[in-house]
């Protein structure tokens, strides 16, 4: 089974060094593309590969690229390295440990889409990642891999590493463009969609860092090779970030379609000794929880949808019997309240309201009716009433927790101490 495509060599070699990366076959794909393939050929391989976006929604990469209008205006590529979803940290590994792969993928995508400039938007907290990536770009530029006339060809591209400054919303595709334009990160109304009118009003493609990193293998080995890995409709591998109550938290690249159970029990070493799985948040704080009964679900976009959750960016937060569903909801609501950009009313006001209710419940000041109130809040905020999906994200876990663990919410309504914590205490005695 092919497992490690993107993470191959990480941990064994210092891939941040251009010579090391090249010695392991790095930039062969770029060389191949520039010497033997037209942009259309590269595009076709990506199309054949059926690569789907790793940033969350699983949109077809080639489809997104194909919506670029052919009108001669400059086009831009933005690599989304904002990675702020609680529980996701796979992009950070790619950026810090395999920066040249990300860069090579970006160059290939720019070649396919005939773009002259690539922006790599990193969240502000990636101080180190930004340094590593900037150094990698400089090194590549020295070697004639970035800038005009790459590898002696007619193709040239500029790469700009751009840092955010602390705002989850800037991972949203239109907010990222606003932020890159030097503005507040407020999402824009759609249409127009970014491929029609994006950064500076120009056609723009926004892809996740991991999506783009996959393009290297696709060009090197062909789209058909990639399409044959894993399930037909979600081919390839996915780097899953596993955190929480497992023995070995970390990033694990798995073939799409690998069961969730295998990821948790084998790769991540299973639950901490003596504890039982209670639920998993498979796509960070914004996904509906997965109960133990669904642990055999294959990890791919469609299978995860079929259990009413999602693969998203595969930031897997594993919770055990010590984790009260209300507590986790409170932590999530605090996050979304802090990160709402403040533009839309339901999200701006609703996330704060939700946090305040959960805060009370969490601190022994629950009141009768709180559960119902939370349900009403979920309905008021969710349902695509907002400009971007942050509003919906903020209630997805809560809604699923309310239906999976109603008794925990009801117990907190009474205003007493947390029953889950009490049970843990008894067990520890």
């Amino acid at each position, binding site marked *: 089974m092919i497992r490690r495509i993107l993470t191959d060599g990480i941990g064994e070699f210092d891939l941040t060094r251009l010579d090391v990366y090249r010695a392991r076959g790095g930039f062969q794909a770029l060389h191949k593309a520039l010497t033997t393939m037209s942009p259309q050929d590269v595009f076709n391989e990506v199309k054949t590969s059926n690569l789907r976006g790793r940033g969350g929604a699983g949109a077809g990469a080639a489809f997104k690229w194909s919506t670029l209008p052919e009108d001669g205006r400059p086009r831009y590529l933005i690599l989304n390295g904002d990675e702020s979803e609680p529980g*996701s940290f796979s992009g950070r590994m790619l950026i810090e440990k395999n920066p040249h792969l990300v860069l090579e993928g970006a160059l290939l995508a720019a070649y396919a889409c005939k773009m002259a400039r690539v922006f790599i938007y990193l969240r502000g907290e990636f101080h180190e990642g930004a340094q590593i990536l900037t150094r990698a770009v400089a090194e590549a530029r020295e070697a004639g891999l970035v800038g005009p006339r790459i590898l002696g060809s007619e193709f040239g591209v500029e790469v700009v590493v751009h840092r955010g400054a602390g705002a989850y919303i800037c991972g949203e595709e239109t907010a990222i463009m606003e932020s890159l334009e030097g503005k*507040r990160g407020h999402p824009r109304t759609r249409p127009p969609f970014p491929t029609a009118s994006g950064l500076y009003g120009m056609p723009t493609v926004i892809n996740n860092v991991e999506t783009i990193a996959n393009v290297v293998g696709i060009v090197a080995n062909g789209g058909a090779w990639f399409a044959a890995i894993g399930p037909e409709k979600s081919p390839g591998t996915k780097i899953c970030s596993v955190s*929480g109550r497992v023995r070995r938290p970390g990033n694990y690249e798995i073939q799409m379609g690998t069961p969730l159970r295998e990821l948790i029990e084998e790769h991540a070493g299973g639950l901490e000794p003596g504890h039982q799985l209670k639920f998993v948040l498979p796509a960070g704080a914004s996904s509906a929880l997965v109960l133990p009964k669904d642990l055999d679900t294959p990890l791919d976009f469609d299978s995860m949808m079929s259990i009413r959750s999602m693969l998203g960016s595969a930031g897997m937060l594993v*919770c055990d019997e010590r984790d009260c569903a209300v507590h986790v909801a409170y932590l999530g609501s605090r996050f979304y309240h802090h990160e709402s950009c403040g533009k839309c009313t339901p999200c701006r006001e609703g996330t704060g309201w939700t946090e305040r209710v959960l805060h009370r419940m969490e601190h022994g000041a629950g009141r009768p009716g709180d559960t119902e109130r939370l349900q009403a809040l979920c309905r008021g905020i969710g349902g695509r009433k907002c400009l971007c999906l942050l509003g919906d994200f903020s209630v997805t876990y809560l809604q699923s927790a309310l239906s999976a663990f109603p008794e925990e919410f009801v117990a907190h309504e009474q205003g007493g101490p947390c029953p889950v914590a009490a049970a843990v205490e008894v067990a520890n005695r």
Partner: protein
Amino acid sequence: MALDAREATDIIGRYPSPRSALLPLLWLGQHRDGYVTEDTVADVALRLGMAVAEVESVLSFYSMFRRRPPARCRLEVCRSLACAMKGSGEILARVQEETGVGPGESSADGAFSVEVVECIAACDHAPAYLFNERMAGPLTPEKALELLRGEGEGRR
């Protein structure tokens, strides 16, 4: 103090529109002075042809820009899901108990400060933290106190 003109021009030159250099220039100022000074705001506004008010507006949206001189040792502890589950709240409480400095506060002598931040994409090292901008984890109460005393570095 104005920003280094060569560096600023270089940054602005990377972008099709000067205004895109806003965040990078603010970072430049914050790196030099430890925080974004009024001078930096004025200088950036001038260089990018923006109103000072516009710069202030954008600046205040992003949580990482500081407007006051920072403490010498800055501990930023993640409070998001994985880290909170692994006890970052308890560590903060313990730090407050021992030093009297709670989240969002600085020690009276300005030697150190304690902040909370949302998920910093280091959940595998939960409870994760940034010490003087360096990402590390897991944090323990002892480690936190040691860092705040200025002994030792954030290490992964």
